[in-house]
């Protein structure tokens, strides 16, 4: 399991909702090739799907002209996926019991399913880094 199967890879897509399913199946294939369990493959697909959906919805001030870059890195300990958009991150992290703030579920889901979630904002865009460790794989 691990680095032997996974080459560094970059995916660039137009910021369109109809691209989500394709990205997810791609992510699933990579996570599978990295040797993650079925459950972890699903978790990684959902977490990356959330990040990309966020990027389409909130990180694309010019709409479909904007691009989203999804970067995959795989080393001995983790699979790390970075989703970079061209907008400004506006969401806040909701409390788990905050039922009315259902629009914030995407972040809650990313935090719960991945081992590491880092959100970086800059004037040029937002990047969301998602990492899953092999040792926590079940």
């Amino acid at each position: 399991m691990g680095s032997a199967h996974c080459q560094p890879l970059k995916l660039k897509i137009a910021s369109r909702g109809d691209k989500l399913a394709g990205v997810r199946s791609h992510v699933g294939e990579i996570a599978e090739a990295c040797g993650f369990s079925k459950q972890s493959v699903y978790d990684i697909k959902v977490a990356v799907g959330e990040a990309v959906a966020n990027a389409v919805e909130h990180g694309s001030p010019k709409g479909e002209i904007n691009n989203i870059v999804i970067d995959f890195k795989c080393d001995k300990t983790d699979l790390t996926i970075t989703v970079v958009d061209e907008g400004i991150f506006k969401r806040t992290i909701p409390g788990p019991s905050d039922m009315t703030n259902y629009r914030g579920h995407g972040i809650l889901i990313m935090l719960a399913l991945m081992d590491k979630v880092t959100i970086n904002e800059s004037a040029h865009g937002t990047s969301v880094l998602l990492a899953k460790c092999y040792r926590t794989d079940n």
Partner: protein
Amino acid sequence: MDMNVEYEKKVPILQISGEIDHFVAPKLQRQIDDLIDADAVKLIFDFTKVDYLDSGGIGVLFNAMQQLLPREGTMGIVCVEPNLIRILELVGLFNKKTNVFLFKDRKEALAAMEKKIEVG
């Protein structure tokens, strides 16, 4: 995502198959809005053939729940896929406050919801 609406014992059952994500969620939202506009207070979602659900779909479910609560309505989710159940539990969809419950099949969902008619 494909979806159709069937009625059993006057309860609308949304049978959905495929993937429910941010992109297709508005289509599901419109269908639910139509049912609620037509005075539905009980909704059953049959997710037996759903293999992916993200926060776009979850947002639609919470939205439906919030529309039904003031009418003392209730929702049933029919699902057996552990990955989906895990996510739905994670976001806290199933509890007495939301009045949304998980069932393993339609029969179980209908029986529980029928009981609520007698009680309520």
